[in-house]
């Protein structure tokens, strides 16, 4: 009977979380505040009202009725942002064509995946849900807030910049060249795929604009002497490529080797594309000065290497070298396992190269926020920013620290002390309790998770 009661209680508590997108208010008192952009404040208070950080300081008081959390001995930091995730995709790779700019992860969000909750328990509040790396130009990404229990639309991070995935090197050459016998089979081919598609997109734009112009002329000519145009159909793929050229979409490019990183910067300089991020970029450290000079960003693993040939000559000191060379770098997970402890991944930059603790924390907060174009809204504890914060039991870079509460928009989505088993939302009524062991749990990195959906396409 007691068990049943607990269960009911838990369901009651949990069902609060399933109410659609809400903003909350909370006052956290007397904690160590890791502001990220303004140092560490000891014995500080943070007040979040209706989802927005409205005050930071000492001895704050909130509006009446606001819930108060005693933060004595605790650390408050902004929610972690993962700039590279496939956490809750429906599918990850539209891998049947080397260029699929027209597809978007916005239409591949699974809002019910329990992995969202697991990430919240690691203090993560936002992710960049990315297309996989099978294609040279993959699909568009979607930045999400981890509001577990809301609809796919409500998970989307309002006003985040549009993004798109590019991928260089082994993955696209393996899938398309090796797998299907079409270009690209080499890094030479990868460059030409990008250039030819940008050129086609630019040509399309000229033709499409010409069509609009002659259509207008035809329609205003009441005497009927103007010939009608041959209509040029709207082309979704080229529209997206033109948006990239116009700077409306931030490119996040899966890349490993130094030479291919240099190649993409050359191509982007030719087309005037700016504000892009190299994802993974295990050899970025070899060309850190060039990356800095181009104002490009990097988003790397803390220590993953050697799982494939193009990461064999890489180093866990990558992040530190990039940081010291003035590159805005983030640490990402690209893994539903690592995302549960990105704080720990960031801490590794201290071990490997003695990056300062404050820079290490930036790599999982404000830096990824910059790379996703959301740094005006999240990524640090600042008045006016959104109330995405986590309360930690100790210093967030310590292995012994646990996330106690995670808030998104001031609303609590994770509570260590009210953390029941079975946090699934999507339940298959055919599931069996006893048989529900999935042997596909994730450990370590044997292959790119951003190649999921693809293996079955490749004939080895």
């Amino acid at each position, binding site marked *: 009977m007691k068990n049943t009661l607990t269960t009911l209680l838990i369901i009651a508590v949990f069902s609060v979380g399933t109410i659609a997108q809400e903003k909350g208010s909370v006052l956290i008192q007397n904690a160590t505040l890791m502001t990220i952009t303004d140092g560490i404040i000891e014995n500080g208070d943070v007040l979040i009202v209706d989802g927005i950080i409205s005050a930071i300081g000492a001895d704050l008081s909130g509006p009446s009725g606001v819930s108060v959390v005693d933060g004595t001995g605790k650390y408050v930091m902004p929610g972690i942002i993962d700039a590279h995730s496939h956490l809750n995709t429906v599918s990850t790779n539209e891998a049947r064509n080397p260029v699929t700019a027209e597809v978007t992860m916005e239409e591949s969000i699974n809002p019910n995946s329990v*992995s969202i*909750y*697991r990430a919240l*328990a690691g203090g993560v509040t936002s992710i960049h849900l990315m297309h996989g790396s099978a294609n040279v130009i993959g699909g568009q990404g979607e930045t999400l807030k981890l509001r577990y229990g809301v609809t796919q639309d409500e998970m989307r991070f309002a006003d985040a910049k549009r993004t798109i995935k590019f991928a260089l090197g*082994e993955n696209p050459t393996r899938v398309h060249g090796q797998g299907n016998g079409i270009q690209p089979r080499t890094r030479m081919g990868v460059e030409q795929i990008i250039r030819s598609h940008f050129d086609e997109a630019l040509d399309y734009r000229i033709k499409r604009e010409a069509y609009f112009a002659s259509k207008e002329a035809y329609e205003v000519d009441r005497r009927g002497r103007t010939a009608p145009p041959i209509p040029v159909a709207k082309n979704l793929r080229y529209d997206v490529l033109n948006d990239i050229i116009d700077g409306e979409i931030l490119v996040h490019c899966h890349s490993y080797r130094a030479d291919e990183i240099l190649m993409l910067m050359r191509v982007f300089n030719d087309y005037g594309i700016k504000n892009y991020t190299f994802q993974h970029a295990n050899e970025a*450290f*070899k060309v*850190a*000065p060039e990356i800095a000079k181009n104002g490009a960003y990097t988003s790397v693993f803390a*220590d*993953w*290497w*050697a*799982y*494939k*040939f193009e990461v*064999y*000559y*890489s*180093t*866990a*000191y990558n992040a530190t*070298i990039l940081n*010291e060379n*003035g590159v805005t770098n983030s640490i990402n997970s690209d893994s539903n*396992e690592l995302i*549960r*402890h990105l704080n*720990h991944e960031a*801490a590794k930059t*201290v*071990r*490997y*190269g*003695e990056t300062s603790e404050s820079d290490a924390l930036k790599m999982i907060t404000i830096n990824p926020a910059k790379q996703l174009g959301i740094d005006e809204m999240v990524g640090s504890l600042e008045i006016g920013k959104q109330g995405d914060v986590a309360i930690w039991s100790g210093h967030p*870079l*310590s*292995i*012994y*620290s*646990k996330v106690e509460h995670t808030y998104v928009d001031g609303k609590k989505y994770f509570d260590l002390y009210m*953390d*029941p*088993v*079975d*946090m*699934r939302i999507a339940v298959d009524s055919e599931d069996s309790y*006893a*048989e*529900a*062991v*999935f*042997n*596909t*749990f994730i*450990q*370590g*990195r*044997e*292959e790119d998770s951003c190649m999921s959906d693809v293996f079955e396409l490749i004939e080895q």
Partner: protein
Amino acid sequence: MMKSKKWNIILALLLMVTFTVQAQITGKPNFGKIAIIDATIHTITEGTIQHGVITLDGEKIEYVGTDRSKVGGGYTVIDATGKHVFPGFMDSGTSLGLVEVNAVPVTVDNREVGNMNPNMLAFTAFNPHSASIPVTRVSGVTHVITAPQGGLMSGQAALMDLWGYSPDSMAIDATAGMVLNWPSVQSRGWGPRNPEQAEKRYKEAVRNLDKWLDNARFYEQMMNEFEADPIGKTKPEKNQQLQAMRALVQGETPLIIAVSSEKDILNAIEWSTHEENSSLNIVFAGVEEGWRVSEKIAEAGIPCLVSTLYTPVRSYDHIHRPYENPAALMKAGVKVAIMTREVENVRNLPFNAGYAAAYGMGAEEAVKAVTINPAEIFGVSDRLGSLEIGKQANLFISSGDPFEPLSQIEQVFIKGYQIPMDSRHTQLFEEFLDRDATQE
């Protein structure tokens, strides 16, 4: 180019360090009489010594205690004031040295073709020059179990130390354990879809296993009799597989059973209690659902090799189960050792242990799970696993708690060798931190 003044100082220091490190590479590791003084010494088996002294004489630990006078002339003295000394950590489950680049099949030597490969030795394929070995050892991991995978019986794992130029010089035990992948009865995942089918397949696999073990026991007995007195007897034909199982059926070589789910663990326990299997020295590895049946594992007295950094096994599992599993087993009375199951990132062993420590195990027990416990499980605690006089000098000096990523592992010793704290990763760091700098 380089930004701050502070940075210039760091850089200058770094260049000095670089210089000395390179001297170590081109030179040789220090070896002989070495003393570490004024350290906090975590002996594991005999408590923690503040301001302690530890001296090495060649491969062995000569002295551990507080008596400075033990450090006579001729010792290289390392002042470790404010630092900590731990025995080298041991990872109980890796494929280090067997796999170089996982996605390049020709560099993958941990998976032989075939279902029954008891004669395959990880020792043979262990590449002492793998780039991953220096990367691993500078993190304080001095020993690994490196194991083959695949099939029902994958082959034999080796216990290797991480300093040397040949498997022969690095092997603590070339046949440290026989790896058995417990046939699963689960009908989910990659296996068959319906429970009956799964059950049938499971039973067939166990029958096959039993048959092999029966044959091995017979072979062992027959060969013993022949070897004891070959005169007048026809020499039996040699069977490579059964020959390789002789030490296993004697109980000399542990049987490492890789098993994950609750049902499978229970089946494996039940199997291990069969009369004919009583001579086997059984160890479980993986054991992700061990927490569900920890009492039963403890009752069977089976030690477990576990990790912590994986996602929950069932969709409805509590989020922290993987972190809490080692503690649950330990508290039930199971001897627990921690492993990474990694290749190139075995260096994350302390962090796997750190999560176990933070989630119920406590730091002291978690340290044991990467030192003395695995040494005991693999029968080498007379040589490894703690800082005791006469044991092999495997240890490291760290700036703080070695589970903390914020700490630095400053110096590692493997069987007395003060090894160069250098790896591909540090070398690339040194070369590329200020890539375009010129010699001054």
